[in-house]
């Protein structure tokens, strides 16, 4: 296929070994979907992100999956990737140690987006220190540095060098830092390039990507523990704000019959699809939808463009589907604004979990949700809290309890 060749020319430039080259050929020939898309739509570093991290696993994407994927990737090539992978200038400045702090503050005032000061342990005799600063591409670096030096009182402009930032450098670096995490006994979250330490346990394989949900964060843990308690078998599950899809995948592993994940970020949807494939979950059990953020959310231009492109997925739920279990692990403000929407997806007597909130924000959420839910219980890890409206509160109850779902409500017997 012609597309094979175009794909090869893109990322397999300087950095890829020949070994990777052949592995990619096999990946391409087996997953038709990926190859047509990659050649045309994805920015090269994103393909490295999703394909090169683990050369030994082949994403199993059934043929019927590939079509929605292509549409998903079309939207990907537009705004959110462009901000994610937008070029930036990285400047390395040498300046005397004693004014490093003040100088970096001054740089921030005059246009730098970030400054990093390395701690020098090997106290060398030179009293100079390096500040690495990141500027947006449009910024005039010379002017900024001279203004900052002036305001701090430096007699001469410190020496510096400018280079354009490399994208997949930092993307790769963050991914390297993931290790398998044991959320609770018998449940592990394993990055795709590591082997699961306990093969018999429930292992959720993830490629963390750039979407939220690696299993390490307290809120993910709280939600996973909640899911373990709530899911008995056969439920329909809605992951509101799915991120990497970890909660939806976990629900299916615990025994739910059907999972739906929704998110406003196209990168999250891609990441979740990828992770579902890694866990051998097909579209009959797992669906993803990209919704437009018309109520909540900040940065205007990204989301406006997403709204224009939502025509590809059936976002407007014509039949109002109801779910047995819903978990929303987002942030305080979206939870407050979307309260009605979240609860509208629940059938009478469903269980709802809310997280992504700090302990101090709990009263606010309780206020907002008490007219809609009853029996709200709160569990906390560190500073983070998770609310749920089921009866299960503490682990200290050693006696056996049974939770029965009935059409009218959830009954707990102790």
């Amino acid at each position, binding site marked *: 296929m012609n597309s094979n060749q175009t794909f090869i020319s893109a990322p397999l430039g300087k950095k890829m070994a020949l070994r990777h080259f052949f592995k990619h050929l096999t990946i391409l020939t087996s997953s038709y979907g990926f190859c047509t898309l990659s050649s045309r739509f994805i920015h090269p570093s994103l393909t490295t992100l999703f394909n090169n991290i683990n050369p030994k696993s082949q994403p199993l994407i059934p043929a019927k999956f590939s079509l929605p994927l292509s549409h998903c990737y079309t939207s990907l090539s537009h705004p959110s990737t462009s901000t994610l992978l*937008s070029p*930036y200038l990285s400047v390395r400045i040498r300046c005397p140690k004693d004014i490093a702090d003040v100088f970096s503050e001054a740089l921030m005032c005059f246009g730098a987006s970030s400054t990093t000061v390395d*701690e020098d342990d090997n106290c060398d005799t030179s009293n100079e220190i390096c500040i690495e600063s990141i500027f947006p591409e449009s910024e005039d670096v010379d002017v900024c540095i001279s203004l900052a030096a002036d305001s701090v009182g430096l007699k001469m402009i410190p020496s510096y060098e400018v280079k354009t*930032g490399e994208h997949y450098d*930092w*993307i790769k670096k963050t991914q390297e830092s993931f290790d398998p995490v044991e959320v609770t006994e018998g449940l592990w979250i394993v990055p795709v390039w590591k082997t699961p330490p306990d093969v018999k346990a429930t292992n959720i394989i993830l490629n*963390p990507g750039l979407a939220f949900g690696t299993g390490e*964060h307290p809120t993910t843990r709280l939600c996973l523990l909640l899911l373990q308690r709530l899911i008995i078998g056969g439920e329909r599950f809605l992951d509101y704000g799915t991120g990497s899809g970890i909660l939806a995948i976990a629900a299916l592993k615990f025994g739910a019959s059907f999972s739906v994940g929704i998110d406003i970020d196209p990168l999250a949807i891609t990441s979740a699809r990828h992770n579902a494939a890694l866990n051998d979950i097909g579209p009959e059990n797992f669906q993803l939808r990209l919704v437009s953020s018309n109520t909540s959310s900040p940065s205007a231009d990204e989301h406006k463009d997403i709204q224009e492109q939502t025509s590809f997925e059936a976002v407007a739920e014509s039949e109002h589907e109801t779910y047995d279990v819903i978990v929303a692990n987002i942030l305080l403000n979206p939870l407050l604004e979307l309260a009605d929407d979240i609860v509208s997806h629940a059938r009478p007597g469903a269980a709802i979990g809310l997280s992504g*909130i700090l302990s101090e924000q709990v009263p606010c959420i309780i206020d907002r949700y008490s007219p809609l839910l009853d029996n709200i219980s709160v569990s906390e890890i560190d500073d*983070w809290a998770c609310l749920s409206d089921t009866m299960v509160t503490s682990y200290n109850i050693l006696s056996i309890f049974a939770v029965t779902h009935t059409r009218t409500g959830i009954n707990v017997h102790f």
Partner: protein
Amino acid sequence: MSTLKEILTRRPVAATIRLTVPAGGARPAPPVGPALGQYRLNLMAFCKDFNARTQKYKPDTPMSVTITAFKDNTFEFTVKSPSVTWYLKKAAGIESGSSRPGHLVATTLSVRHIYEIAKIKQSDPYCQYMSLESICKSIIGTASTMGIKVVKDLD
């Protein structure tokens, strides 16, 4: 301010990172991404944490964050409220201060505005020991360097 135990168990610091991030809008994109990624810090954890803590601010207010990255890939961060100059510009509705402060007055603000700004600033970690009056005085000082005049009442 730190206890003896904290000093003894202090982790070695790898770097100090300063960033300006819009409130509730931290994403793994530049500038957050490259700056934190370099030290292998968990980007998404920072974004989630930062967004949760800045929920009470209006979206897109530029917050200044100082992150201390430790050698074991963990980190701590403090969030400071936006700079006084930013607040003054918002209150006055202008884009930039006057080009010749001291000579040219860009706009005027009433004492009420200053008071409101001072109240927000008081919750900042480094202003907590100052009296409201002294915070107001320093804000008025900043305003005059920008060419903003402060009057008792705006008519």
